[in-house]
């Protein structure tokens, strides 16, 4: 077969240009390190590359979420750990504290409580990455007001001290805890609440009597009343009557009156008179003294604690009308009462944030300042810091002791979530985040390895192919040169 000279050189040219194209591609592979510069060139592995690139991007975004979340969780846990220490300090301090006024009408414990209150507020107003950690979804508002405003209020807004004062007045009334003591007839004593619906003062809860010959009724009626009617047979010495009084904070105190023949009687005793009428008069007088004494101490402490509950409630509760005669609470408005917590109040406090840390894997986290345990710590410190004593009234010691007992008991967190529990919960979240992070990192590294293997050119293979092609190209040039000499025209 004859080959045309033109076809021969065309073939040669296309062969050489083919090799040069391959050479250029190999040079590109060598310099970029990538097998292909287009998805088309990736062949069947393009789906893998697309999926893995997406996965790696997603995982990296999960990682960044985990890092941000971990910082928040860790910071929250650190702050709450300190708050838990404050809680313990106040709790144990309350149990051990004695009534020694040191400065400004307050005991050492109260002064400490004032400082701890400041510290707690600082902790709860922790701002990480321009974001409030304890305000729920209101991340741009400082969640807790400062302690001065909280305790003292300002011209337009009542602070905790005013709320305590009003509540104390409302609960104590004329000094008898809103109880009315009377003698409807000779030999009969009646003890009644002043209002059926009023939340203030003592509430008659139960009466137990061993008084011989006396008829004890109640508490019955509305408002509830207790009646003691002495009969012809007079009580024997040692007979007693106990009245259980429910206090505003839900605790109970018992007044026990014991019959005695001593005159004058000791505290909590009444002298058995000559007849029913005189015994009743003695009984009424002792009951009156006991009620007034209890009102000044236990009731006042319970009232103070309850004022704390009122103030730290949502919305805060205020005494409606003139305190001494008030019979109802009314919700304090942002216009007239300091709102201690300025953050988000929607939903249940705690775990208000959700972090997506993997495909379909989420972690709820976060604590809120109005969460019960946290609020209790702030409230206890604030109540302790708000109360002052004159040091002149002998009953103040008992009142103080009733108060510290109550605050310490609240800080026991018996049967409720404590600050420690919240910290533990956050710690678990932190651990889960760390595990997720490790998993993601492993996954990313695996994916990246596969991606590299798929996308990257093997330098060794490329170099070998390159040198083979170069040899081939040299040979082609050589042959072309030799062939060009091989023309009959050169030999004629």
């Amino acid at each position, binding site marked *: 077969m004859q080959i045309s000279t*033109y076809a021969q050189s065309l073939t040669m040219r296309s062969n050489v240009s083919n090799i040069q194209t391959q050479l250029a591609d190999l040079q590109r592979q060598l310099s970029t390190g990538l097998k*292909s510069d287009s998805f088309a060139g*990736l062949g069947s592995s393009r*789906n893998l*590359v697309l999926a893995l690139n*997406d996965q790696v991007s997603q995982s990296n975004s999960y990682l960044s979420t985990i890092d941000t979340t971990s910082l928040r969780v860790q910071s929250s846990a650190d702050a709450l750990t300190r708050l838990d220490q404050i809680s313990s300090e106040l709790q144990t301090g309350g149990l051990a504290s004695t009534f020694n006024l040191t400065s400004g009408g307050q005991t050492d414990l109260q002064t400490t409580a004032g400082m701890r209150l400041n510290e707690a507020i600082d902790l709860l107003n922790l701002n990480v990455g321009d974001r409030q950690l304890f305000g729920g*979804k209101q991340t741009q508002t400082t969640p807790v007001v400062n302690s001065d405003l909280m305790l003292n209020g300002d011209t337009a807004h009542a602070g905790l001290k005013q709320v305590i004062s009003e509540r104390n007045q409302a609960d104590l009334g004329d000094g008898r805890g809103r109880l009315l003591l009377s003698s409807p007839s000779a030999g009969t004593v009646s003890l009644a609440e002043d209002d059926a619906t009023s939340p203030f003062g003592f509430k008659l809860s139960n009466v137990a009597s061993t008084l011989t010959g006396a008829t004890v009724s109640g508490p019955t009626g509305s408002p509830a009343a207790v009646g003691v009617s002495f009969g012809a047979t007079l009580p024997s010495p040692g007979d007693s009557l106990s009245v259980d009084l429910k206090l505003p904070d839900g605790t109970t105190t018992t007044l026990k009156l014991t019959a005695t023949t001593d005159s004058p009687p000791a505290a909590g005793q009444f002298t058995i008179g000559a007849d029913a009428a005189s015994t009743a008069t003695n009984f009424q007088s002792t009951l009156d003294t006991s009620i007034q004494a209890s009102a000044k101490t236990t009731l006042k402490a319970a009232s103070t604690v309850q004022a704390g509950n009122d103030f730290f409630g949502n919305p805060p509760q205020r005494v409606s009308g003139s305190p001494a005669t008030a019979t109802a609470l009314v919700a304090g408005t942002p216009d007239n009462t300091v709102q201690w917590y300025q953050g988000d109040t929607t939903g249940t406090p705690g775990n208000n944030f959700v972090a997506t840390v993997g495909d379909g894997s989420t972690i709820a986290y976060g604590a809120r300042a109005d969460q019960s345990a946290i609020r209790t710590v702030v409230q206890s410190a604030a109540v302790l810091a708000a109360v002052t004593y004159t040091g002149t009234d002998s009953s103040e010691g008992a009142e103080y002791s009733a108060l510290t007992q109550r605050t310490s008991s609240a800080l026991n967190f018996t049967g409720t979530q404590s600050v420690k529990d919240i910290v533990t919960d956050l710690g678990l979240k932190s651990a889960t985040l760390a595990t997720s992070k490790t998993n993601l990192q492993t996954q990313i590294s695996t994916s990246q390895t596969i991606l590299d293997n798929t996308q990257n050119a093997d330098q060794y293979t490329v170099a070998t192919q390159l040198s083979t092609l170069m040899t081939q190209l040299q040979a082609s040039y050589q042959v072309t040169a030799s062939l060009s000499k091989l023309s009959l025209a050169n030999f004629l």
Partner: protein
Amino acid sequence: MALYSAVGSALSGLNAAQAGIDLVSRNIANAGTPGYTRKTLLLDNQVAAGGSIGVSVLGATRNVDSFLQQQLRTETASTQKLNVYSDFLGRVDGMFGTPDSNTSVAASITSLETTLQSVATTPDDPAARQTFLNSASNLASQLNSMSAKIQGMRLEAEQNIATSVQQANTDLQTVAGLNDQISQRQASNYPVADLQDLRDNAINDLSKLMDVKTVQNDDGTVTVFTGGGQLLLDKTPVKLTFDEHTSMDANSSYNIDASQRKVGTITLQNGTTQVDLIASGAITSGSIAGYIQMRDTTLPQAQSQLDELASQLALSLSQETVPSTAASGGGATGLGIDTSSMLSGNQLNLSYTDDAGVSHKVTVVKVTDPSVLPLASTATADPNDTVIGINFNQPMSGVVSDLQAALGTNVVVSNPSGSTINFLNDAGSGGTSTIDALTATVTPASLTDAGTGLPLFVDGQSQKAYSGSLDNPPQVNGFAGRIQVNSAILADDTKLIVYSTSPATAIGDDMRPRDLLSRLTDTSRTYSAASGIGSTTTPFQGSVDAFARRIVSFQSSQSANATNAASAQQIVSNTLQDKFNGDTGVNIDDEMANLIVLQNSYAANARLITTVQQLFDTLLSIGK
């Protein structure tokens, strides 16, 4: 006298040798001319009175295998078509960037998701919100620019068809002119080989543009047909015209009906007859066929994939489901729904069980343009539903009666008040059908107090809500070219967080960003098979990012296939070309060898004349 005839023969030999050398010189001169075929000299023994009186030169001829030539032209046409595919699809693939740069549309959607994830983690961070809006804008402009590039390529194909048609006309004119010359010269017995070369060149040119068949006639002329059998040239060439359109968008498509056609077509004019060559399928190969395929099929498919992606992206973020309420009347019970917030393209999804106990799933699509009714069952991507298109651009009584007519007797449709529609069972007429479920899928335009979704993407500069309207033209057509980020959100990025004004959503609330994220990544959607991905019976289902990845892999795999097909075809074509060139081209060695033969022949003939001269001298010197 014999000596005289010897001189005559020698002279004819000299002439033949000269003609031969002339031909060798022309062969060598054209050795590198494309399309030049090797010419050989035809010689004949010149006979007079029964005896030879020398050699006669019949002229140059060529030796061409016409079967091989036809095959070569067919393969050339095919190569050209595949090269067009490969070139255009390579550019589509190029729009996705390099695999390592992560700049493809799929990567942009991934980036939209990862930045949204940051917003969900830190909703109160303005930087996170801005970054997310940036990636949304980038995605929108990437879709816009890809859409513009695709339409640009279609316009380029249109222009290329116009140029190619002009070229084809020129080629046909050339062939016609050469046909005339060849037939005249052949009739006068003049050599035609060189003219045939020129004509072959013109036909080869034409066969790059479209597949042609030639038939050789006895008078030396050729008749040219298209591959599909349309006559292009007999005695006179037909005229091909192309009504080039100068702009192209997603709604510009070819239609056999000339009034609906929004792109150019090739018309063959033969006297008074006109034939639409695209409609008749006369052109099946060549670069013109390649351009037509790109302009009318392949690129519109790429566009519709981007449109479907843009559409699902917009809908996934904005769609809300409106629940129905229990309704009853006339002893029948069922469900009622308020249709007032429905936009054109929004749907009612009704499930009911008929009297025979068979469950039915019906999708009622709101349209406002009755000309598009009735809708095909493929109007929704869901293969298991019955699609009913209802014109809502009429009084409610009309809507109700249209619905009733479409649903039959198992469902009783009524309009108790306003724009509420009740779908009740047929208990009123003693039947046992039940209405099982009814919801409406709507796309609220409001950014707040309408659910936790968000119309982040809107249609065009006018910020029209995107609801996938099926009115003519369907809103999805070219949506990728128009998709924009809602300017109200760009103006106030807190709209990404605040979904409710009463109670006011706190700025740290991650509800909306988390919902948007889950709509993008977790919610599986069904994609229309019209985009070429998935089928009507088993449509593609998955998240939006998965669909985007599918598009990238679909297009790049098409590109790779086209490139492979083109290079395989190139090899076939090259092999044939080599064989053809080898058979018909000039081999210089051969010509040189021939030159020696001719030189020798010339020398021998000249020597003969010298000898005769000497003989005459000898003869004349006799007797001196």
